[in-house]
Protein backbone atom coordinates (compact mmCIF):
# COMPACT_ATOMS: atom_id res chain seq x y z
CA UNK A 1 0.00 0.00 0.00
CA UNK A 2 1.02 3.59 -0.24
CA UNK A 3 2.84 5.59 2.31
CA UNK A 4 0.59 7.02 4.96
CA UNK A 5 2.16 9.20 7.55
CA UNK A 6 0.67 11.22 10.33
CA UNK A 7 -2.35 10.42 12.38
CA UNK A 8 -5.69 11.95 13.15
CA UNK A 9 -5.71 12.25 16.89
CA UNK A 10 -8.62 11.08 18.91
CA UNK A 11 -10.38 9.32 16.06
CA UNK A 12 -11.35 5.77 15.62
CA UNK A 13 -10.84 4.89 11.99
CA UNK A 14 -12.50 1.53 12.37
CA UNK A 15 -15.66 3.23 13.50
CA UNK A 16 -15.71 5.75 10.70
CA UNK A 17 -14.52 3.64 7.80
CA UNK A 18 -17.26 3.44 5.22
CA UNK A 19 -15.51 1.55 2.50
CA UNK A 20 -14.14 -1.95 2.52
CA UNK A 21 -10.84 -1.02 0.95
CA UNK A 22 -10.11 2.00 3.09
CA UNK A 23 -6.44 2.60 3.60
CA UNK A 24 -6.54 4.40 6.91
CA UNK A 25 -5.09 1.51 8.86
CA UNK A 26 -1.64 2.85 8.01
CA UNK A 27 -2.55 6.33 9.13
CA UNK A 28 -2.97 5.42 12.77
CA UNK A 29 0.61 4.23 12.93
CA UNK A 30 2.08 7.44 11.59
CA UNK A 31 3.75 10.17 13.54
CA UNK A 32 3.01 13.31 11.59
CA UNK A 33 6.62 13.72 10.49
CA UNK A 34 6.01 14.31 6.78
CA UNK A 35 5.38 18.03 6.79
CA UNK A 36 1.84 18.07 8.08
CA UNK A 37 0.57 19.99 11.04
CA UNK A 38 -0.16 18.17 14.28
CA UNK A 39 -3.27 16.09 13.93
CA UNK A 40 -3.13 16.22 10.17
CA UNK A 41 -3.14 13.06 8.09
CA UNK A 42 -0.44 13.27 5.43
CA UNK A 43 -0.83 11.17 2.31
CA UNK A 44 2.08 10.97 -0.10
CA UNK A 45 0.63 10.67 -3.57
CA UNK A 46 3.97 9.68 -5.03
CA UNK A 47 3.36 6.32 -3.42
CA UNK A 48 -0.42 5.94 -3.50
CA UNK A 49 -2.97 5.35 -6.23
CA UNK A 50 -5.81 7.85 -6.39
CA UNK A 51 -8.54 5.45 -5.28
CA UNK A 52 -6.59 4.59 -2.17
CA UNK A 53 -6.13 8.28 -1.38
CA UNK A 54 -9.80 9.04 -1.81
CA UNK A 55 -10.86 6.00 0.21
CA UNK A 56 -8.63 7.19 3.05
CA UNK A 57 -10.14 10.67 2.88
CA UNK A 58 -13.69 9.36 2.83
CA UNK A 59 -12.98 7.32 5.95
CA UNK A 60 -12.07 10.41 7.97
CA UNK A 61 -14.54 11.67 10.58
CA UNK A 62 -16.00 15.16 10.79
CA UNK A 63 -13.38 17.70 11.82
CA UNK A 64 -10.39 15.72 10.57
CA UNK A 65 -7.66 17.30 8.49
CA UNK A 66 -5.54 15.83 5.72
CA UNK A 67 -2.75 16.98 3.44
CA UNK A 68 -2.02 15.43 0.05
CA UNK A 69 1.63 15.88 -0.87
CA UNK A 70 3.21 15.36 -4.29
CA UNK A 71 -0.09 15.65 -6.19
CA UNK A 72 1.75 16.46 -9.45
CA UNK A 73 -1.41 17.45 -11.28
CA UNK A 74 -3.17 14.16 -10.73
CA UNK A 75 -6.89 13.92 -11.56
CA UNK A 76 -9.85 13.17 -9.29
CA UNK A 77 -8.26 14.12 -6.00
CA UNK A 78 -10.47 14.53 -2.92
CA UNK A 79 -13.65 13.74 -4.83
CA UNK A 80 -16.86 12.51 -3.30
CA UNK A 81 -16.07 13.54 0.27
CA UNK A 82 -19.19 13.57 2.42
CA UNK A 83 -17.99 14.72 5.82
CA UNK A 84 -16.82 18.05 7.23
CA UNK A 85 -13.14 17.35 6.73
CA UNK A 86 -10.44 19.79 5.68
CA UNK A 87 -8.16 18.62 2.90
CA UNK A 88 -5.18 20.52 1.53
CA UNK A 89 -3.70 19.51 -1.80
CA UNK A 90 -0.11 20.70 -1.58
CA UNK A 91 0.56 21.44 -5.24
CA UNK A 92 -1.10 21.38 -8.64
CA UNK A 93 -4.17 19.19 -9.09
CA UNK A 94 -5.69 17.81 -12.27
CA UNK A 95 -9.30 17.39 -13.31
CA UNK A 96 -12.33 17.38 -10.99
CA UNK A 97 -10.53 18.17 -7.76
CA UNK A 98 -12.99 18.30 -4.87
CA UNK A 99 -15.87 17.34 -7.13
CA UNK A 100 -19.12 15.87 -5.80
CA UNK A 101 -18.24 16.99 -2.27
CA UNK A 102 -20.58 17.53 0.63
CA UNK A 103 -19.51 19.56 3.67
CA UNK A 104 -15.77 19.16 3.03
CA UNK A 105 -13.30 22.04 2.69
CA UNK A 106 -10.76 21.31 -0.04
CA UNK A 107 -7.91 23.74 -0.68
CA UNK A 108 -5.46 23.41 -3.54
CA UNK A 109 -2.12 25.20 -3.25
CA UNK A 110 -1.56 25.46 -6.98
CA UNK A 111 -3.33 25.47 -10.33
CA UNK A 112 -6.07 23.00 -11.18
CA UNK A 113 -7.32 21.35 -14.33
CA UNK A 114 -10.85 21.02 -15.70
CA UNK A 115 -13.94 20.81 -13.53
CA UNK A 116 -12.65 21.91 -10.14
CA UNK A 117 -15.53 21.41 -7.69
CA UNK A 118 -17.79 20.01 -10.40
CA UNK A 119 -21.15 18.88 -9.08
CA UNK A 120 -20.29 20.20 -5.61
CA UNK A 121 -23.21 19.73 -3.20
CA UNK A 122 -21.97 21.78 -0.25
CA UNK A 123 -18.72 22.75 1.40
CA UNK A 124 -15.87 24.63 -0.23
CA UNK A 125 -13.25 24.11 -2.90
CA UNK A 126 -10.60 26.83 -2.86
CA UNK A 127 -7.96 27.07 -5.57
CA UNK A 128 -4.90 29.13 -4.69
CA UNK A 129 -3.99 29.48 -8.34
CA UNK A 130 -5.57 29.40 -11.76
CA UNK A 131 -8.32 27.04 -12.82
CA UNK A 132 -8.71 25.48 -16.24
CA UNK A 133 -12.05 24.96 -17.96
CA UNK A 134 -15.45 24.38 -16.39
CA UNK A 135 -14.71 25.32 -12.79
CA UNK A 136 -17.73 24.57 -10.57
CA UNK A 137 -19.57 22.89 -13.44
CA UNK A 138 -23.08 21.80 -12.39
CA UNK A 139 -22.39 22.63 -8.74
CA UNK A 140 -25.62 22.25 -6.76
CA UNK A 141 -24.41 24.01 -3.64
CA UNK A 142 -21.32 25.06 -1.77
CA UNK A 143 -18.67 27.52 -2.83
CA UNK A 144 -15.85 27.26 -5.33
CA UNK A 145 -13.21 29.98 -5.00
CA UNK A 146 -10.52 30.52 -7.64
CA UNK A 147 -7.92 32.97 -6.44
CA UNK A 148 -6.39 33.33 -9.90
CA UNK A 149 -8.08 33.28 -13.31
CA UNK A 150 -10.53 30.68 -14.58
CA UNK A 151 -10.59 29.75 -18.24
CA UNK A 152 -13.50 28.83 -20.49
CA UNK A 153 -16.95 27.76 -19.35
CA UNK A 154 -16.52 28.60 -15.66
CA UNK A 155 -19.79 27.89 -13.87
CA UNK A 156 -21.27 25.99 -16.81
CA UNK A 157 -24.69 24.57 -15.95
CA UNK A 158 -24.44 25.85 -12.39
CA UNK A 159 -27.35 24.42 -10.40
CA UNK A 160 -27.36 26.45 -7.20
CA UNK A 161 -23.77 26.59 -6.06
CA UNK A 162 -21.62 29.68 -5.89
CA UNK A 163 -18.45 30.43 -7.82
CA UNK A 164 -16.08 33.28 -6.99
CA UNK A 165 -13.15 34.01 -9.29
CA UNK A 166 -10.70 36.68 -8.17
CA UNK A 167 -9.30 37.25 -11.64
CA UNK A 168 -10.66 36.93 -15.16
CA UNK A 169 -12.90 34.28 -16.67
CA UNK A 170 -12.73 33.06 -20.26
CA UNK A 171 -15.45 32.68 -22.86
CA UNK A 172 -18.82 31.07 -22.19
CA UNK A 173 -18.82 31.66 -18.44
CA UNK A 174 -22.13 30.52 -16.90
CA UNK A 175 -23.29 28.80 -20.08
CA UNK A 176 -26.72 27.29 -19.35
CA UNK A 177 -26.39 28.12 -15.65
CA UNK A 178 -29.67 27.36 -13.95
CA UNK A 179 -29.32 28.64 -10.39
CA UNK A 180 -26.68 30.05 -8.12
CA UNK A 181 -24.28 32.97 -8.11
CA UNK A 182 -21.05 33.75 -9.91
CA UNK A 183 -18.75 36.59 -8.88
CA UNK A 184 -15.96 37.59 -11.24
CA UNK A 185 -13.39 39.88 -9.65
CA UNK A 186 -11.72 40.67 -12.97
CA UNK A 187 -12.95 40.71 -16.56
CA UNK A 188 -15.34 38.32 -18.26
CA UNK A 189 -14.73 36.92 -21.75
CA UNK A 190 -17.08 36.74 -24.69
CA UNK A 191 -20.49 35.06 -24.57
CA UNK A 192 -20.97 35.61 -20.85
CA UNK A 193 -24.14 33.94 -19.59
CA UNK A 194 -25.11 32.36 -22.88
CA UNK A 195 -28.50 30.61 -22.59
CA UNK A 196 -28.64 31.54 -18.93
CA UNK A 197 -31.53 30.39 -16.75
CA UNK A 198 -31.84 31.81 -13.24
CA UNK A 199 -28.23 32.00 -12.10
CA UNK A 200 -26.93 35.54 -11.58
CA UNK A 201 -23.46 36.81 -12.51
CA UNK A 202 -21.66 39.79 -11.03
CA UNK A 203 -18.59 41.13 -12.80
CA UNK A 204 -16.30 43.68 -11.16
CA UNK A 205 -14.28 44.31 -14.32
CA UNK A 206 -15.13 44.54 -17.98
CA UNK A 207 -17.65 42.34 -19.78
CA UNK A 208 -16.23 41.57 -23.21
CA UNK A 209 -19.53 40.35 -24.57
CA UNK A 210 -22.87 38.84 -23.56
CA UNK A 211 -24.14 35.49 -24.76
CA UNK A 212 -27.57 34.80 -26.19
CA UNK A 213 -30.39 35.72 -23.80
CA UNK A 214 -28.07 37.30 -21.22
CA UNK A 215 -28.66 40.92 -20.27
CA UNK A 216 -27.22 43.50 -17.95
CA UNK A 217 -29.72 44.40 -15.26
CA UNK A 218 -30.02 46.85 -12.39
CA UNK A 219 -28.16 46.27 -9.19
CA UNK A 220 -30.46 46.16 -6.17
CA UNK A 221 -29.64 46.46 -2.47
CA UNK A 222 -30.10 42.72 -2.22
CA UNK A 223 -27.52 42.22 -4.96
CA UNK A 224 -25.03 44.48 -3.19
CA UNK A 225 -25.52 42.53 0.01
CA UNK A 226 -25.09 39.23 -1.81
CA UNK A 227 -21.90 40.40 -3.50
CA UNK A 228 -20.53 41.78 -0.24
CA UNK A 229 -21.16 38.49 1.53
CA UNK A 230 -19.72 36.39 -1.26
CA UNK A 231 -16.63 38.57 -1.66
CA UNK A 232 -16.05 38.44 2.09
CA UNK A 233 -16.39 34.67 2.17
CA UNK A 234 -14.07 34.33 -0.80
CA UNK A 235 -11.57 36.74 0.75
CA UNK A 236 -11.71 39.20 -2.14
CA UNK A 237 -10.93 42.73 -0.94
CA UNK A 238 -10.56 44.12 -4.45
CA UNK A 239 -14.26 43.89 -5.29
CA UNK A 240 -16.50 46.89 -4.61
CA UNK A 241 -19.99 45.38 -4.11
CA UNK A 242 -21.65 48.58 -5.26
CA UNK A 243 -19.66 48.72 -8.46
CA UNK A 244 -20.26 45.44 -10.23
CA UNK A 245 -22.17 44.60 -13.39
CA UNK A 246 -25.14 42.31 -12.84
CA UNK A 247 -25.89 39.86 -15.65
CA UNK A 248 -29.03 37.75 -15.63
CA UNK A 249 -31.31 35.98 -18.08
CA UNK A 250 -33.49 38.00 -20.43
CA UNK A 251 -35.83 34.98 -20.33
CA UNK A 252 -36.51 35.16 -24.04
CA UNK A 253 -35.54 31.54 -24.62
CA UNK A 254 -37.81 30.13 -21.94
CA UNK A 255 -40.87 29.61 -24.09
CA UNK A 256 -41.70 28.89 -27.68
CA UNK A 257 -42.74 32.14 -29.28
CA UNK A 258 -45.26 31.80 -32.08
CA UNK A 259 -43.90 34.98 -33.62
CA UNK A 260 -40.73 33.01 -34.33
CA UNK A 261 -42.33 29.77 -35.44
CA UNK A 262 -40.86 30.21 -38.88
CA UNK A 263 -37.41 29.77 -37.41
CA UNK A 264 -38.13 26.23 -36.22
Amino acid sequence: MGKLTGAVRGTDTADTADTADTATAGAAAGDGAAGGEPGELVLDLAEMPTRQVNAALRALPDGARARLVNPAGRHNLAVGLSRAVRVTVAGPAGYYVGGLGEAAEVTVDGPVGWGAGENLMSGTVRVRGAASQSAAASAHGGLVVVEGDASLRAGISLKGGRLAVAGDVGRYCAFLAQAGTILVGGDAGDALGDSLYEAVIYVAGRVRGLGTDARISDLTDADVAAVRALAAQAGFDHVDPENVTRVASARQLYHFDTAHHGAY
Partner: protein
Amino acid sequence: MCGIAGLHLKDDTYRDRLGAMVAGMLRGVAERGPDSAGVAIHSDGLEVLKAVGDPLAFAARIGLATRSGVRALAHTRMATESAVTAAHCHPFAVRPPEPARGTAAGQASAAAATPVDTRLCLVHNGSFANHASIRRRLADEGVTTETDNDSEVAARYLAARLAAGDDLAAALRRLTATFDGFFTLAVTTADSFAVVRDPIACKPAIIAETDRWVAMVSEYRALLGLPGLADAAVFEPEPEEVYLWAS
Protein backbone atom coordinates in the same frame (compact mmCIF):
# COMPACT_ATOMS: atom_id res chain seq x y z
CA MET B 1 -8.95 11.95 -26.16
CA CYS B 2 -5.25 12.00 -27.22
CA GLY B 3 -2.40 13.86 -25.61
CA ILE B 4 -0.18 16.32 -27.38
CA ALA B 5 2.96 18.18 -26.47
CA GLY B 6 5.26 20.57 -28.26
CA LEU B 7 8.52 22.21 -27.27
CA HIS B 8 10.36 25.04 -29.00
CA LEU B 9 13.75 26.19 -27.75
CA LYS B 10 14.56 29.86 -28.11
CA ASP B 11 18.32 29.37 -27.68
CA ASP B 12 20.83 26.54 -27.34
CA THR B 13 20.76 26.33 -23.54
CA TYR B 14 18.67 23.19 -23.44
CA ARG B 15 19.50 21.77 -26.87
CA ASP B 16 21.14 18.68 -25.41
CA ARG B 17 18.26 18.23 -22.97
CA LEU B 18 15.43 18.60 -25.46
CA GLY B 19 14.79 14.86 -25.56
CA ALA B 20 14.72 14.60 -21.78
CA MET B 21 12.28 17.51 -21.56
CA VAL B 22 10.03 16.01 -24.22
CA ALA B 23 10.21 12.59 -22.56
CA GLY B 24 8.82 14.13 -19.38
CA MET B 25 6.08 15.89 -21.32
CA LEU B 26 5.18 12.68 -23.14
CA ARG B 27 4.96 10.90 -19.80
CA GLY B 28 2.54 13.59 -18.61
CA VAL B 29 0.13 12.93 -21.47
CA ALA B 30 0.66 9.17 -21.73
CA GLU B 31 -2.63 8.32 -20.00
CA ARG B 32 -4.51 10.33 -22.60
CA GLY B 33 -3.43 8.07 -25.45
CA PRO B 34 -2.58 4.43 -24.83
CA ASP B 35 -3.01 3.29 -28.45
CA SER B 36 0.12 4.72 -30.01
CA ALA B 37 2.77 7.37 -29.64
CA GLY B 38 5.05 9.41 -31.82
CA VAL B 39 7.57 12.22 -31.80
CA ALA B 40 9.02 14.61 -34.33
CA ILE B 41 12.40 16.07 -33.42
CA HIS B 42 13.92 18.95 -35.30
CA SER B 43 17.67 19.01 -34.90
CA ASP B 44 20.10 19.39 -37.78
CA GLY B 45 17.44 17.53 -39.72
CA LEU B 46 14.03 16.15 -38.86
CA GLU B 47 13.41 12.76 -37.32
CA VAL B 48 9.90 11.34 -37.03
CA LEU B 49 9.40 8.22 -34.95
CA LYS B 50 6.11 6.56 -34.11
CA ALA B 51 4.73 3.21 -33.09
CA VAL B 52 1.61 1.44 -31.94
CA GLY B 53 1.50 0.59 -28.26
CA ASP B 54 2.38 1.99 -24.86
CA PRO B 55 3.83 5.53 -25.06
CA LEU B 56 6.26 5.03 -22.20
CA ALA B 57 7.67 1.85 -23.71
CA PHE B 58 7.98 3.69 -27.02
CA ALA B 59 9.90 6.56 -25.40
CA ALA B 60 12.27 4.12 -23.72
CA ARG B 61 12.75 2.11 -26.90
CA ILE B 62 13.80 5.10 -28.99
CA GLY B 63 15.95 6.58 -26.22
CA LEU B 64 13.93 9.76 -26.32
CA ALA B 65 15.47 11.18 -23.16
CA THR B 66 18.96 11.13 -24.68
CA ARG B 67 18.12 13.00 -27.86
CA SER B 68 18.99 16.60 -28.62
CA GLY B 69 17.31 19.13 -30.83
CA VAL B 70 15.72 22.55 -31.10
CA ARG B 71 12.02 21.79 -31.50
CA ALA B 72 9.79 18.78 -31.04
CA LEU B 73 6.27 17.45 -31.07
CA ALA B 74 4.93 14.46 -29.20
CA HIS B 75 1.60 12.67 -29.40
CA THR B 76 -0.20 9.91 -27.58
CA ARG B 77 -3.26 8.60 -29.37
CA MET B 78 -6.61 7.33 -28.24
CA ALA B 79 -8.07 6.44 -31.61
CA THR B 80 -11.64 7.51 -32.25
CA GLU B 81 -12.11 7.67 -35.98
CA SER B 82 -9.62 5.50 -37.82
CA ALA B 83 -7.53 2.41 -37.29
CA VAL B 84 -4.69 1.95 -34.83
CA THR B 85 -1.74 1.32 -37.10
CA ALA B 86 1.73 2.77 -37.45
CA ALA B 87 0.55 4.72 -40.49
CA HIS B 88 -2.23 6.34 -38.46
CA CYS B 89 0.09 7.50 -35.67
CA HIS B 90 0.88 11.14 -35.19
CA PRO B 91 2.86 13.26 -35.86
CA PHE B 92 2.01 13.49 -39.51
CA ALA B 93 5.04 14.78 -41.37
CA VAL B 94 4.24 16.17 -44.79
CA ARG B 95 6.42 17.77 -47.40
CA PRO B 96 4.76 20.71 -49.16
CA PRO B 97 3.72 19.63 -52.64
CA GLU B 98 5.66 20.86 -55.64
CA PRO B 99 3.38 23.52 -57.12
CA ALA B 100 4.77 23.15 -60.64
CA ARG B 101 4.01 19.47 -60.92
CA GLY B 102 0.92 19.62 -58.77
CA THR B 103 1.62 16.28 -57.18
CA ALA B 104 1.78 15.20 -53.61
CA ALA B 105 5.37 14.79 -52.63
CA GLY B 106 4.97 14.04 -48.95
CA GLN B 107 6.64 10.81 -48.00
CA ALA B 108 7.03 10.62 -44.26
CA SER B 109 9.31 7.62 -44.15
CA ALA B 110 12.81 8.84 -44.87
CA ALA B 111 14.76 11.74 -43.48
CA ALA B 112 15.73 14.17 -46.19
CA ALA B 113 19.30 14.24 -47.38
CA THR B 114 19.08 17.99 -47.92
CA PRO B 115 20.27 20.29 -45.12
CA VAL B 116 16.81 21.72 -44.53
CA ASP B 117 13.95 19.30 -44.21
CA THR B 118 10.88 21.09 -45.51
CA ARG B 119 8.39 18.76 -43.92
CA LEU B 120 5.64 20.20 -41.77
CA CYS B 121 4.73 18.16 -38.71
CA LEU B 122 1.34 18.14 -37.02
CA VAL B 123 -0.20 16.60 -33.93
CA HIS B 124 -3.91 16.80 -33.25
CA ASN B 125 -6.22 16.28 -30.31
CA GLY B 126 -9.82 16.15 -31.48
CA SER B 127 -11.67 15.11 -34.59
CA PHE B 128 -12.63 16.77 -37.84
CA ALA B 129 -16.18 16.41 -39.14
CA ASN B 130 -15.56 17.49 -42.73
CA HIS B 131 -12.21 15.90 -43.47
CA ALA B 132 -13.67 13.73 -46.24
CA SER B 133 -14.89 16.79 -48.16
CA ILE B 134 -11.56 18.54 -47.76
CA ARG B 135 -9.70 15.37 -48.72
CA ARG B 136 -11.64 15.29 -52.01
CA ARG B 137 -10.92 18.94 -52.68
CA LEU B 138 -7.21 18.40 -52.03
CA ALA B 139 -7.26 15.40 -54.36
CA ASP B 140 -8.69 17.63 -57.06
CA GLU B 141 -5.63 19.82 -56.58
CA GLY B 142 -3.33 16.82 -56.86
CA VAL B 143 -2.71 16.48 -53.14
CA THR B 144 -3.30 12.93 -51.99
CA THR B 145 -3.29 11.35 -48.57
CA GLU B 146 -1.72 8.11 -47.49
CA THR B 147 -4.30 7.14 -44.88
CA ASP B 148 -7.98 7.67 -44.06
CA ASN B 149 -7.01 9.55 -40.91
CA ASP B 150 -8.64 12.96 -40.38
CA SER B 151 -5.55 14.58 -38.89
CA GLU B 152 -3.46 13.74 -41.94
CA VAL B 153 -5.85 15.83 -44.01
CA ALA B 154 -5.05 18.84 -41.85
CA ALA B 155 -1.33 18.30 -42.30
CA ARG B 156 -1.73 17.95 -46.07
CA TYR B 157 -3.92 21.04 -46.17
CA LEU B 158 -1.39 23.14 -44.29
CA ALA B 159 1.50 21.92 -46.41
CA ALA B 160 -0.48 22.70 -49.56
CA ARG B 161 -1.21 26.20 -48.25
CA LEU B 162 2.49 26.77 -47.53
CA ALA B 163 3.30 25.61 -51.05
CA ALA B 164 0.68 28.03 -52.35
CA GLY B 165 2.41 30.92 -50.65
CA ASP B 166 0.73 31.28 -47.26
CA ASP B 167 2.94 31.67 -44.24
CA LEU B 168 2.24 29.26 -41.40
CA ALA B 169 0.08 31.68 -39.40
CA ALA B 170 -2.06 32.47 -42.44
CA ALA B 171 -2.39 28.78 -43.27
CA LEU B 172 -3.56 28.02 -39.74
CA ARG B 173 -6.09 30.84 -39.79
CA ARG B 174 -7.40 29.48 -43.06
CA LEU B 175 -7.58 26.03 -41.50
CA THR B 176 -9.71 27.26 -38.61
CA ALA B 177 -12.17 28.72 -41.12
CA THR B 178 -12.19 25.59 -43.29
CA PHE B 179 -12.11 22.64 -40.93
CA ASP B 180 -15.17 21.81 -38.87
CA GLY B 181 -14.74 19.92 -35.66
CA PHE B 182 -12.78 19.79 -32.45
CA PHE B 183 -9.12 20.49 -32.53
CA THR B 184 -6.11 21.58 -30.64
CA LEU B 185 -3.24 21.46 -33.10
CA ALA B 186 0.48 21.84 -32.59
CA VAL B 187 2.57 22.29 -35.71
CA THR B 188 6.29 22.51 -36.37
CA THR B 189 8.33 23.36 -39.43
CA ALA B 190 12.07 23.77 -39.95
CA ASP B 191 11.93 27.14 -38.22
CA SER B 192 8.54 27.53 -36.48
CA PHE B 193 6.27 26.20 -33.77
CA ALA B 194 2.54 27.00 -33.73
CA VAL B 195 -0.60 26.21 -31.75
CA VAL B 196 -4.25 26.77 -32.64
CA ARG B 197 -7.61 25.67 -31.20
CA ASP B 198 -11.12 25.47 -32.59
CA PRO B 199 -13.71 28.19 -31.77
CA ILE B 200 -15.23 26.22 -28.89
CA ALA B 201 -11.87 25.03 -27.58
CA CYS B 202 -13.26 21.70 -26.47
CA LYS B 203 -9.85 20.14 -26.33
CA PRO B 204 -7.39 21.20 -23.67
CA ALA B 205 -4.24 23.21 -24.20
CA ILE B 206 -1.82 24.91 -21.87
CA ILE B 207 1.18 26.95 -22.91
CA ALA B 208 4.16 27.75 -20.70
CA GLU B 209 6.77 30.22 -21.89
CA THR B 210 10.12 31.35 -20.56
CA ASP B 211 12.99 33.29 -22.13
CA ARG B 212 14.54 30.01 -23.19
CA TRP B 213 11.63 27.81 -24.31
CA VAL B 214 7.95 27.62 -25.01
CA ALA B 215 5.99 24.45 -24.34
CA MET B 216 2.44 23.44 -25.16
CA VAL B 217 0.77 20.46 -23.51
CA SER B 218 -2.68 18.95 -23.08
CA GLU B 219 -2.43 18.93 -19.30
CA TYR B 220 -0.53 20.91 -16.72
CA ARG B 221 1.08 17.82 -15.23
CA ALA B 222 3.03 17.39 -18.46
CA LEU B 223 4.85 20.64 -17.72
CA LEU B 224 6.14 19.48 -14.35
CA GLY B 225 9.88 19.04 -14.42
CA LEU B 226 10.60 21.56 -17.15
CA PRO B 227 13.52 23.78 -16.09
CA GLY B 228 12.37 27.20 -14.95
CA LEU B 229 8.67 26.33 -14.89
CA ALA B 230 8.18 28.23 -11.65
CA ASP B 231 9.03 31.47 -13.45
CA ALA B 232 7.24 30.64 -16.71
CA ALA B 233 4.22 32.50 -18.01
CA VAL B 234 1.51 29.83 -18.04
CA PHE B 235 -1.73 30.40 -19.94
CA GLU B 236 -4.39 28.67 -21.98
CA PRO B 237 -4.43 29.68 -25.64
CA GLU B 238 -7.57 31.50 -26.73
CA PRO B 239 -9.92 29.79 -29.17
CA GLU B 240 -9.19 30.46 -32.87
CA GLU B 241 -6.09 32.47 -32.10
CA VAL B 242 -2.86 31.40 -33.79
CA TYR B 243 0.16 31.29 -31.51
CA LEU B 244 3.44 31.10 -33.38
CA TRP B 245 7.10 31.19 -32.46
CA ALA B 246 9.86 31.24 -35.06
CA SER B 247 13.60 30.78 -34.67
